[in-house]
């Protein structure tokens, strides 16, 4: 999703298909009709990415307990607002500071957003206007924070989490994003991340990991030396979430082509879909073999695992590679869930397994399955970003822990956050056993 004006030609030249075909475009000049269709597709992508936020919300609600439902819905609604607003305030201009930051580590083009008339023409970019650019990017930004939300669910203190999200989206996500998509040092290094296996998913995943470690597990999850399942309360919601996320991914990946280029977008649609389906199959087989019974929640995670896995290389790997990447992601995610549980890292929705583990896998897979990209560059990107995000999270979330606390009291946790933090229930009238 590298998108500064200076770099877009380079990017298109990277888009090399199976047989080596390159989609030619008429240089920086496009007809007004072509500009309009490109822009229209980018706006469609923006609304598709938008709907991912509903997907995250329902998935997360579905895989947690009924007594924390209002809290999760509240968090995930607020995050979209916070994410978009902070991105407008400063994130966008931190992430895309312009040519001055080329090859660098940091840049800032000032607070707020705005453009002159040229920002509305193909002089700005052949694929979209300034405003399209902003809205598409802003929809991405909030995603990173939402990933954290799932991992810390059912015990995090609402106010602390909202503050954390605001800071993370305003500062950490755009700075890291600038390294690659803003034309920074990682881009210069040859690191490749098409739509954000690392730049979005791992960036969220690392924060999630650190936050979970700081928070500790939910009460009752690892009692008396055994791992106890805490079952999600609403599987239809979880499934709705995954399908909506998949839907949104057509915009997440398809829009990262940054134009409506027929060959590129349709190819990305195919690789994205095949990876998702292969992820489902991988998780289904693994879960059926390892857990003996086919576990729906694992299969749903498998679908997302495939999607996260293909995100880094959706435009540069072959059809067969896309299936393999998805399949491995689907297998990986099941073991990762079991593995984190063994480590007593309590992640109610599998956010770490899906976004962190498969985000890393997808990024490295570009180095493996695309000859045009170096494994080493990919590895450097993964490691440096991991270290940076983890340290940032330790500072921000650790700081919040000291200043105002990050976890609700055990009584609040046991009563459920809906009653304790919001004074209301999600399913008024329904008889629910809240013994867990």
């Amino acid at each position, binding site marked *: 999703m590298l998108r500064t004006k200076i770099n877009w030609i380079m990017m298109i030249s990277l888009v090399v298909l199976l047989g080596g075909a390159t989609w030619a475009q008429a240089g920086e000049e496009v007809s007004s009709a072509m500009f309009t269709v490109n822009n229209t597709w980018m706006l469609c992508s923006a609304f598709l990415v938008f709907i991912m936020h509903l997907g995250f919300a329902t998935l997360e609600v579905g895989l947690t307990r009924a007594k924390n439902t209002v809290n999760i819905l509240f968090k995930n609604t607020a995050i979209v607002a916070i994410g978009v607003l902070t991105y407008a305030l400063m994130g966008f201009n931190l992430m895309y500071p312009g040519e001055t930051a080329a090859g660098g580590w940091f840049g800032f083009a000032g607070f707020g957003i705005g453009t002159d008339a040229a920002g509305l023409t193909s002089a700005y970019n052949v694929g979209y206007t300034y405003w399209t650019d902003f809205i598409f990017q802003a929809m991405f930004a909030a995603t990173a924070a939402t990933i954290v939300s799932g991992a810390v669910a059912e015990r995090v203190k609402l106010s602390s989490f909202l503050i954390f999200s605001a800071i993370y989206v305003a500062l950490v996500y755009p700075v890291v994003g600038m390294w690659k998509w803003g034309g920074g040092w990682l881009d210069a290094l040859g690191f490749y991340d098409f739509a954000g296996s690392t730049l979005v998913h791992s960036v969220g995943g690392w924060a999630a990991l650190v936050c979970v470690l700081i928070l500790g597990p939910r009460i009752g999850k690892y009692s008396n030396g055994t*791992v*106890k*399942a805490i*079952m*999600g309360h609403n599987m239809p919601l979880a499934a709705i979430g995954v399908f909506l996320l998949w839907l949104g991914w057509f915009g997440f990946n398809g829009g990262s082509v940054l134009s409506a280029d027929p060959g590129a977008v349709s190819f990305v649609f195919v690789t994205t879909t095949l990876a998702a389906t292969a992820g489902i199959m991988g998780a289904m087989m693994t879960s059926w073999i*390892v*857990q*003996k*019974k086919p*576990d729906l*929640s*694992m299969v749903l995670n498998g679908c997302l695992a495939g999607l996260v896995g293909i995100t880094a290389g959706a435009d540069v790997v072959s059809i067969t590679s896309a299936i393999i990447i998805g399949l491995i992601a689907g297998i990986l995610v*099941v073991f990762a*869930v*079991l593995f984190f*549980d063994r480590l007593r890292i309590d992640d109610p929705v*599998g956010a770490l397994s899906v976004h962190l583990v498969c985000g890393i896998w997808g990024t490295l897979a570009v180095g493996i399955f695309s000859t045009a990209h170096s494994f080493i560059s990919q590895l450097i990107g993964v490691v440096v970003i991991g270290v940076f995000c983890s340290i940032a999270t330790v500072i921000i979330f650790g700081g919040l822990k000291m200043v105002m606390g990050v976890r609700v009291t055990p009584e609040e946790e046991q009563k459920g956050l809906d009653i304790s933090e919001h004074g209301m229930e999600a399913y008024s009238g329904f008889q629910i*056993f809240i013994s867990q």
Partner: protein
Amino acid sequence: MKLIIAYVQPHKLNDVKQSLIEAEITKMSVTNSLGCGQQMGFTETYRGAEVEINLLKKVRLEIAVNDEFVEKTITAIADGAHTGAIGDGKIFVITLDQCYRIRTGDTGPEAIG
């Protein structure tokens, strides 16, 4: 007057109701309940971790009857619920001191039926 409490398998409820109606016992109250008895429960897995489900879903019936109906009621419930497999359920009988029909104000054996 006695109060009869019975725990039966949920999918046997219709049969039990049927056999009660045949025995002309048409008043009852039903709740759902979780039970723990000789039927030992089973293990669900969710995301790789085990959940021991040792509280199985049961249906609880509460039937107030006059003394002469006690035997008949027990037999009817047992008839409807019996399969011979573990988990068939239990019936408990308690002495009822008083019964009162709100609509009419009737009390005692009158009010039961």
